[in-house]
């Protein structure tokens, strides 16, 4: 039965699912990368994803328009990001703990609204697959890479865009300066608070988008705790990827491929304990943190409050 795994159509299936499932991780962890590079650790990503997933699903369910759902999901995420920025920048609250508060709020609130407004698990027709002309006709590669819905393409496009912003623009320079040495950035006239508000709000918007990519593009359902901790993995992926979009891309693909493999093992009914396969990415992440963290420059002011005149 294990030989079934090596049949051509299964391998193509695993690769295709792997690409698809990387989508929510990519949106959420690239958003988190911006926040962390500017010095804010947002642990509430999972709660923001849940709220985005619910909002996107609810609007799509009632209007039949996934674009409108997507827009609302992004707005809800951005609003929660703005709240997190207010808590961590203006109120200077301990970020690790307030993030847990934001998570619990999103977890409870999305469940509450789901039970009150939908009641049962419904399905929507979200974003349909969009075959890219010509490219999707290429055998194998066409199926694996060019027959996805638009949010999948968007997630992969976000990687070079984020790379460009962070490495080739003044904004990117400001974000990194604020994260590495807020006092110096402040002395040079960069508003630490404004940059952090911007990055954390952006991170929230992308977390909302990540949630919507699950509820109206990949799964087309919403249920209680839909993300089951994906947002926490997204936070870890930022460390795993060494605060670079390309590193985050690698990490997202690793997690999503293992998820895809495990899905197919279950579909084919292969009697191997897939729990260990699911466990592997977490073990790998810990190992990566042990061996990578010391080589890579963590933003020096990550999760530290900036007090003017105390640098």
């Amino acid at each position, binding site marked *: 039965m294990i030989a079934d795994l090596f049949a051509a159509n299964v391998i193509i299936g695993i690769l295709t699912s792997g690409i698809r499932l990387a989508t929510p991780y990519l949106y959420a962890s690239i958003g988190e990368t911006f926040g962390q590079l500017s010095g804010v650790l947002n642990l509430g990503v999972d709660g923001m994803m849940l709220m985005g997933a619910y909002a996107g699903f609810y609007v799509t369910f009632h209007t039949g328009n996934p674009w409108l759902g997507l827009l609302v999901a992004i707005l809800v995420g951005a609003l929660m990001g703005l709240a997190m920025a207010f808590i961590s920048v203006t*109120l200077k609250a301990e970020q690790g703990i307030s993030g847990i508060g934001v998570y619990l709020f999103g977890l409870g609130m999305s469940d509450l609204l789901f039970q009150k407004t939908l009641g049962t698990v419904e399905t929507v027709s979200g974003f349909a697959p969009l075959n890219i002309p010509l490219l999707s006709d290429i055998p194998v590669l066409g199926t694996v890479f060019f027959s996805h819905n638009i949010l999948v393409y968007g997630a992969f496009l976000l990687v070079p865009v984020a790379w460009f912003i962070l490495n080739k623009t003044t904004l990117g320079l400001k974000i990194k300066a604020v994260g590495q040495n807020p006092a110096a950035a402040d002395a040079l006239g960069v508003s630490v608070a404004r940059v952090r508000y911007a990055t954390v709000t952006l991170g929230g918007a992308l977390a909302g988008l990540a949630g919507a990519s699950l509820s109206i593009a990949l799964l087309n359902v919403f249920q209680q705790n839909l993300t089951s901790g994906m947002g926490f993995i997204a936070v870890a992926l930022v460390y795993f990827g060494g605060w670079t979009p390309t590193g985050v891309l690698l990490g997202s693909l690793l997690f999503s491929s293992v998820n895809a493999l495990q899905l197919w093992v279950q579909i084919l009914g292969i009697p191997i304990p897939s729990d260990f396969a699911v466990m592997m990415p977490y073990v790998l992440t810990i190992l990566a943190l042990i061996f990578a963290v010391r080589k890579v420059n963590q933003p020096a002011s990550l999760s530290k409050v900036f007090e003017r005149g105390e640098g």
Partner: protein
Amino acid sequence: MEPKKRIRPINWLGPSIPFLAALAAFVLGAFMLLLLGANPIEAYAALIDGAFGSMNSIADTVVKATPLLFVGAGICVAFRGGVINIGGEGQLVVGALAATLAALTFTTWPAWALIPVCLLLGFLAGAVWGAIAGFLKAYYNVNEILTTIMMNQIAVQLMNYLLSGPIMDPVQIENGSFIPQTARFPAAADLPRLVPTRLHLGVLLAVVVAILVWVLLWRTTLGYRIRAVGLSPAAARRAGIRVEQYAMLALLISGALAGLGGAVQVLGVNHRMFTDGSATGFTSSAGFNGIVAALFGQLHPLGAIPASGLFGAMLVGANKMQRVVQVPSALITALNGLVVIFVVSSEIWRRQLARRQEMGAMREAALATAPAGEMT
């Protein structure tokens, strides 16, 4: 000149912060209830009635508070030691798993031997789970928030593997239903009931543990050092304290107490281990709610006792509220999140107050030491 005794402003803000935070959360909750078309007074009355209305509901409240107190007491040690333990969920799970393995293995043992062994193994399993994160923090500088989150997921997969294979209930396999749960433990593993309700001995154990944590933190050198490391690692290092070791120890103790909580939960309430595929199925988010209770109790283990009771009451009462006003009990999870946010956000005012008091004290000291001639 007689040194004038200055009356210090009473720090009323300090202890009242959690209550103000909870009040703010409940006021916001009332607005949410209104928006959902429910009468807030009726809803909160149902909540209180559900939590305290009868002997049975009070017992349920206390039983629900128990894992929160185990986790919360551990959180006090970790946070006071300057390490953030988000791994309560995983530590509860491995503690319960260790106790489960013992209860299913030593089926012929009498209660007086079996129960202590189960509890001890749960304690140790949690300690190992916490210590791994602590070790990596201390010697490899790996962020403990991330490792504890990863260890949560690893614990869940370990549980799913064990419950759907090696220790699955043989009846499930015979019937072909394959529900991932173990057989019921031998009766000797049941924690004794205190009164004819669901109240079990683990409740008392949790209170004793909280008191012991207070003794540890404020009455022993070890605890003093843990707190010193948490207050200022640099100063602690200058004073000759090995900062790394104490950070690791704080995580180890924190994990051990959560592990013990998991063992108590499975021996006192469930009498078998089960999973719905996630940690929440077994823990009901006690690993997170324990953090809420500890923060509410001002990271003081004795404060965590009533705080756990309060949050246990909210969780139990939420079910009644759901029945009476048709508002899902998930509202309470959202309100818990708000309480955390408000408590940590209000730190800013406490810091300002502390700074003002410090300034006052310094001015006082300056006046006291000033030459007498300038005072007239």
